[in-house]
C-alpha cells in the first residue's frame, strides 16, 4: 500500500525546499479543490519531456524528484502544500481532468516529501483508506518520504496548535501516448490561475 522512508534528506535540503516554496512568486492560497481547507501552495504540472525545464525553474525539487520518480512515469502534478492551524484536507482521491479528451485520470503513485512537521502541531495525520473496513493512519515526521498507490481515498486531519506543516506532493502518472498529448507540457497553477493549459 505504501512505502515510508524516514530521514530521506538532510535538514539543509529540507530548509532549501521550504524556502523555495514559501518565497515563490506563485505561493498563495492553494489552487487545489475544495477538499483543501485553508491550505497554501501552488501546483506545477508537466510531462517528462519538460522535466529539465521544470528543474531549471524549480531547482530545489531536483534531489526529491531524483529519489521519487519512476522511470515509467511520464506526467506529473507537483503540489507544494503548507498547512497551519485549522488547515485540513478532506477525503478525496487525487484526480485530474484532461479537458481535451474529457477524461479523468488518477495517478499511479503519490509521493510526498515532508519538509517540516513541527512537534507543536497536533492533528495532521494522514489517513489512507485502504478498503471499506481498513484505514491506515500515518503520523508524518520531518524528512519522511512517503509513497502510496494513487487510487487510495485519503485525507489529512485538521491541524491544531501553533506551527506549520510543509510538504511537497508529487502525483505520478503513466499515461498512454494519446492521453499524454492532452496533458499540459508545463504549467504553473495558482489560485488566481488554476486552469492547466497545454503549452
Amino acid at each position, binding site marked *: 500500500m505504501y512505502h515510508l*522512508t524516514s530521514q530521506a534528506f538532510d535538514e539543509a535540503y529540507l530548509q532549501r525546499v521550504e524556502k523555495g516554496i514559501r518565497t515563490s512568486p506563485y505561493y498563495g492560497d492553494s489552487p487545489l479543490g475544495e477538499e483543501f481547507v485553508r491550505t497554501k501552495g501552488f501546483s506545477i504540472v508537466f510531462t517528462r519531456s519538460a522535466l529539465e525545464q521544470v528543474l531549471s525553474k524549480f531547482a530545489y525539487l531536483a534531489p526529491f524528484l531524483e529519489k521519487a520518480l519512476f*522511470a*515509467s512515469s511520464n506526467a506529473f502534478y507537483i503540489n507544494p502544500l503548507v498547512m497551519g492551524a485549522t488547515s485540513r484536507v478532506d477525503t478525496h482521491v487525487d484526480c485530474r481532468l484532461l479537458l481535451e479528451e474529457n477524461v479523468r485520470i488518477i495517478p*499511479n*503513485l503519490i509521493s510526498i516529501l515532508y519538509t517540516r512537521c513541527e512537534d507543536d502541531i497536533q492533528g495532521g495525520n494522514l489517513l489512507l483508506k485502504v478498503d471499506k473496513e481498513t484505514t491506515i493512519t500515518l503520523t508524518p515526521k520531518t524528512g519522511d518520504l512517503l*509513497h502510496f498507490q494513487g487510487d487510495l481515498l485519503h485525507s489529512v486531519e485538521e491541524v491544531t496548535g501553533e506551527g506549520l506543516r510543509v510538504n511537497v506532493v508529487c502525483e505520478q502518472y*503513466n499515461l498512454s501516448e494519446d492521453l499524454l498529448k492532452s496533458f499540459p507540457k508545463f504549467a504553473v497553477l495558482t489560485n488566481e490561475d488554476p486552469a492547466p493549459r497545454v503549452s
Partner: protein
Amino acid sequence: MEIVSAMALRALEKHNYGELSIYQDLLSGIYNTHIPPYGEQIFQREYFRMIRDPGWFASLLVSDADIEGYSAGRLWTYASTVPDTHFAKEIQRHALDEARHSKLFSRMVLRLFPSLDEKDLREKLDAMSPELPPDTPEASEESRRGSFEEILNSAILLNIYEVKALVMLELLRPALLAYCEPSDQSWGKRVMSVLVADEARHIGYTARFINAAAANGYRSYISDAMEDFQRALNDVSWLELEDTITEFDETSEEFEALIKR
C-alpha cells in the same frame, strides 16, 4: 505493534480467519523481539530505490515467477507425505495457488514489458510454472511419514514465509501500479488483490494449525521454534538484501559507464 505482524493480523482479520488469539500473541511476540528486515526502514528504502529501475523490476518479476513455481512443486510433493489429510489438502491447495502465482508473475512481465515478449523468455517462463493436476489422490499409507512435531515445524515455517510473502506483496503493490498504463490499472489491482487474498489464506490455514497445537500443550514448543526459524529467516533475508544491493549498484555503475562512453 510493529508493521509485519500488524500486516499479517490485519489480513487475517479482513479474511475472517476466526479466533486465533494464541497465534496472534506468539506472532507479535516473535516480531517484537526479532524484527524482520522487511519490516525495517532500510529494507523498504533500498527496495524502493531498486524497484524504480525497470530492468531490476522486470527481473524481480521473473524471479518471483521462478520461486513461486519451484515452491509449488515442492509443496505438492510434500503434501503427499503428510498424514493429516485435512492439512495435506490445504497444502495441496497452497501448491495450486503457488503454481497460479507463477503464471501471474509471468504474465506481469510480458504485459508490463512487451518489448521482452520473445520466444526464449516465454519458454523460460512456461518452464517455471508447473502444471499441477487439479486433484491428487490422498497419500498412501507407505508414503505418509512425519511425527506431529515435524508437521508442526512445517506449518510454522510455511507460516513465517507466507507472512514475508504478504509483506513483499504489499511493498510490490504501489510499484506495480506505478508501472501500469491506464489500460492496465484495473488488471494490476485485480491481480494484486488475488495474490494478497491467497497469501492471507496461506497464513490463515497454517495459523489455525499452529493455534490449535498451541491450545493443546505445544505453546512453548511453538514459541521456541518460531523464534529459531524467524531468526534464521532474518539472517537469510539480510544476506539476500546485501547481495541484491551490491549486484544492483554494480549493474547500475556498469550501465552508467556504458551511457557515458
